[in-house]
């Protein structure tokens, strides 16, 4: 119990003192996850919108598949990306295994289905309300898709934050493709895993506190933005 208290105190000193190693790890975490969210949004949002307003064969199957992909096990994603990027793999000559780029790829694969599936749901719900009005005004499906993305922008922002949270908190995939190399590919989650097994609790705990705080702040931010938007735009 006492050692736990000491570990907490030490963790707090690291955070309060802007410990260089801790800051570096947090910084890389944010950078990798942020880039992954941006790329996943550029891919996932149009996919979600097109499925939402589209009418084509196999649509229902695609939705089921997409929803299932939301639960992709990170270690499996890590393994597949690892095989693709390893020397003998099809993308081996890129030489990006064990770099932050590989981690961005793994996280993007992980959260693109989440952003596509959740945005599909939100946009489709809005489409039910807007459908006749938009068609009456002369909107084609592609116009409608873009209009709906814009009109649901505050709800969609919540999804992006959820995707970011998932990416930042994930450990299996980045561990495999990043390799957890100190100063290069070490992020919050992988460092926590490593330091815990080494018995260096202050750093692990400090990062844990930062990680949890980050998740809470993100969710609070999402709630505040939605609330403000509702009040302002109805």
């Amino acid at each position, binding site marked *: 119990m006492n050692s736990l208290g000491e570990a907490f105190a030490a963790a707090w000193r690291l955070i309060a003192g802007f410990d260089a190693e801790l800051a570096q790890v947090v910084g890389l975490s944010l950078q990798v996850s942020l880039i992954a969210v941006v790329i996943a949004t550029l891919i996932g949002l149009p996919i979600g919108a097109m499925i939402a307003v589209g009418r084509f064969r196999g649509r229902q199957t695609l939705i089921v598949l997409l929803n299932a992909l939301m639960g992709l096990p990170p270690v499996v994603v890590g393994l597949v990306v690892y095989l693709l990027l390893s020397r003998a793999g099809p993308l081996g000559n890129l030489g990006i295994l064990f770099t932050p780029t590989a981690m961005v790829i793994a996280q993007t694969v992980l959260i693109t289905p989440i952003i596509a599936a959740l945005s599909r749901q939100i946009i489709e719900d809005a489409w039910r309300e807007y459908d006749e*009005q938009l068609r009456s*005004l002369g909107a084609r499906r592609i116009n409608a898709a873009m209009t709906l993305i814009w009109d649901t922008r505050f709800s969609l922002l919540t999804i992006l934050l959820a995707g970011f949270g998932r990416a930042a908190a994930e450990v299996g995939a980045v561990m495999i493709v990043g390799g957890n190399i100190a100063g290069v590919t070490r992020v919050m989650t992988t460092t926590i895993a490593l330091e815990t097994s080494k018995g260096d609790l202050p750093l692990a705990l400090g990062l844990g506190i930062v990680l949890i705080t980050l998740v809470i702040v993100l969710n609070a931010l999402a709630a505040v933005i939605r609330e403000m938007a509702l009040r*302002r*735009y109805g």
Partner: protein
Amino acid sequence: MLPLELDQLTFSAGNAAIIRGISARIEAGPRTVILGPNGAGKSVLMRLCHGLLTPTGGRIVWHGAMNGGKSVDVRRHQAMVFQRPVMLRRSALANVMYGLKLAGKSRNQSGLRAMDVLEVVGLAQHAARPARVLSGGEQQRLALARAWALGPDVLFLDEPTANLDPASTQDIENIINAIHASGTKIIMTTHNLGQARRLGDEILFISNGRLMEHTPIDKFFRQPASSEAAAFIKGEMPWQ
């Protein structure tokens, strides 16, 4: 665009027949009111005419839209105002400009035209406000402005005042008359006899998916030809 001809029009959803063989010819000019009890098929008939629903049988022909035998894009020449208008999450002005931009107007043209119609419906001072925070009556006026801005040959209105108080209703009716005066054909549904009388020149009385009467307004109220219409009038205005 007009005349509009409906030829043995039918529509069913699943096993339920909603429109059962309606034939009618609607001419340019008079304000046409589609009247009937709730569930008669008024809204569905209007959605079929506007092209939001596809008939399961029969034909809809816009005779005036045949250009040397070829049909032109008829939807561009129509607009519709719904019972509960859907406002986009943007300003009132941007809501009106939305349809204009879809119709291919430049940003400049759209802006000028949108401000003009907002002025006419009395919403110019709210142009910059988010549309969804306007009151119900204001939203419906905005919906009218958005439809009118497109300069349609035909304007469909589906129970446009069903959810509004008397003052807002009067505003809406005045605007409908102004749109009529500007040369746009008005086709509207209502189940309110007072409104039918105030706004209608001719009545299409629908009951249970069938067209029971197509008559000038005076004749309809003086001597309804069908027992259904007589019963509807008596039920709505028992003092007469």
